[in-house]
């Protein structure tokens, strides 16, 4: 209990100091909301319409979750193939790197034109693409970076490549997998959000932020941003929880 408390107060403290400084800056410098809305203004917008905040966050969160799930699966599959067949590795790695360099802002219009703009599909696809790269790169590295002696052990037992994958490479890649997921989870949220700028249903955080910002309603825009931050943190915490639960050995060895 005390331990949990101890792990909670540093971010709270830093967060509080940060917000206090922000509020102070706004007051002292007499910054107008069009420039930088005060935390108090954002908070009143946020709490003033909690229902709307949560329903928009749920819409975007669903897109992000779908994208994260599919992107992760795709990343895993591609990494497994790449670790097993070097030809896949040779081909997929540069393609993935190239695809990862296409900004959402260029990608979304193309996908919006391919898939019906009135559906969620193009947004999920954008998220999938964003999630894919960090997952793929990290997992591939984890699958390949095994100790030579462990590999020899497997070989001495005449393990098939598939077995080596299952018994050695996959467990070895677990910490890498979670490193990738920790990067991908918040990115999934932002991808799902940004994909909403370019059209389609207007129920999500992205649309709301865009239209609020376009009207210089920065207090409201930032309230939605707060919702997206909360969403991102939730995703991240979920990843942490899953890591603790499924891979308890990771990072344990450093405790002496």
């Amino acid at each position, binding site marked *: 209990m005390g331990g949990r408390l101890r792990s909670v107060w540093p971010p709270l403290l830093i967060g509080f100091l940060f917000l206090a400084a922000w509020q102070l800056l706004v007051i002292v410098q007499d910054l107008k909301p069009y420039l930088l809305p005060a935390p108090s203004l954002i908070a009143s917008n946020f709490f003033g319409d909690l229902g709307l905040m949560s329903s928009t966050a749920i819409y975007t969160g669903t897109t992000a979750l779908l994208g994260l799930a599919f992107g992760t699966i795709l990343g895993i599959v591609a990494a497994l193939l790449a670790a097993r067949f070097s030809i896949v590795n040779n081909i997929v790695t540069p393609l993935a790197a190239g695809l990862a360099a296409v900004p959402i802002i260029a990608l979304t219009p193309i996908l919006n034109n391919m898939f019906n703009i009135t559906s969620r599909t193009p947004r999920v696809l954008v998220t999938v693409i964003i999630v894919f790269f960090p997952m793929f790169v990290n997992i591939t590295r984890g699958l390949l970076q095994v100790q030579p*002696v462990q590999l020899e*052990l497997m*070989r*001495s*037992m005449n393990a098939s490549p598939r*077995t080596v994958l299952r018994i050695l490479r996959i*467990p070895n890649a677990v910490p890498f997998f979670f490193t990738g997921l920790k990067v991908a989870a918040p990115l999934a949220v932002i991808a799902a959000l940004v994909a909403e700028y370019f059209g389609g249903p207007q129920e999500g955080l992205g649309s709301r932020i865009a239209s609020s910002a376009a009207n210089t309603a920065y207090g409201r825009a930032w309230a939605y941003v707060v919702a997206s931050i909360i969403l991102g943190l939730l995703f991240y915490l979920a990843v942490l929880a899953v890591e603790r639960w499924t891979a308890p050995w990771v990072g344990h060895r450093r405790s002496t």
Partner: protein
Amino acid sequence: MSAAPTSTVAVQAAGVSKVFNEGLANEVTALQDIDLSVREGEFVSLIGPSGCGKSTLLRVIADLTHPTQGTIEVAGMPAAAAREQQRYGMAFQQAALFDWRTVRRNVELPLELQGWSKDRRQARAMELLEMVQLADFASHRPWELSGGMQQRVAIARSLAVDPPLLLMDEPFGALDEMTRERMQNELLRIREETGKSIIFVTHSIPEAVYLSDRVVVMSPRPGRITHVVPVDLGPRNEDTREADAFFDAVTAVREALRGHGGGTVRAKAGEV
């Protein structure tokens, strides 16, 4: 598993050389012109100074690395085929345990690969852990064990399946004397019961003599076989270590290691 040509030769190495980093500045000739043949059911120890190529020789026999020259036959077939047919089990110099598995599941690993049912392999693993006196630690993680305990887990793992040939690289190096003697006797018992052939790397001359039918002495850079000392002590028992023949053999091996020819037999492949 499947039918292998019957043969009385368990391992046959002919003209084996192994050069690392060939052609580069840091070239090392780890093995040169190794001829060695191990009969079925024979216990052969490899002994020699640090870096003389013992581990490399084991790895070549196990088809974990390819010789630069020469050929290896295991159970009458090429090394690769023997590996694929699981004709040997290997204990490595490093324990090479998997951190993400408990001690018991580390021992189960080879059984899993052979598709044993969960119950059977658990029972087998516990039996082996009992043997290496680590049953209490079955559910610990490898990094919670002492060096010697890790090594014992690795030994248990190498004995889990029942291959006709055992390749063991300093398996008892990190064990105290008493545990070591227990393990030696266990190994001899297993060999007795199953008729396994065993190639065993050790730095302990008494251990080599106590266990082996033949002690192969190697010298470094380039790694060559310099002497082969036959040991004939009959069935081992409590008194073996006190027998004169034992001390003679120990002395012979020691002499061989020091580079003197006295009392040793220079072996040539095929002759033995």
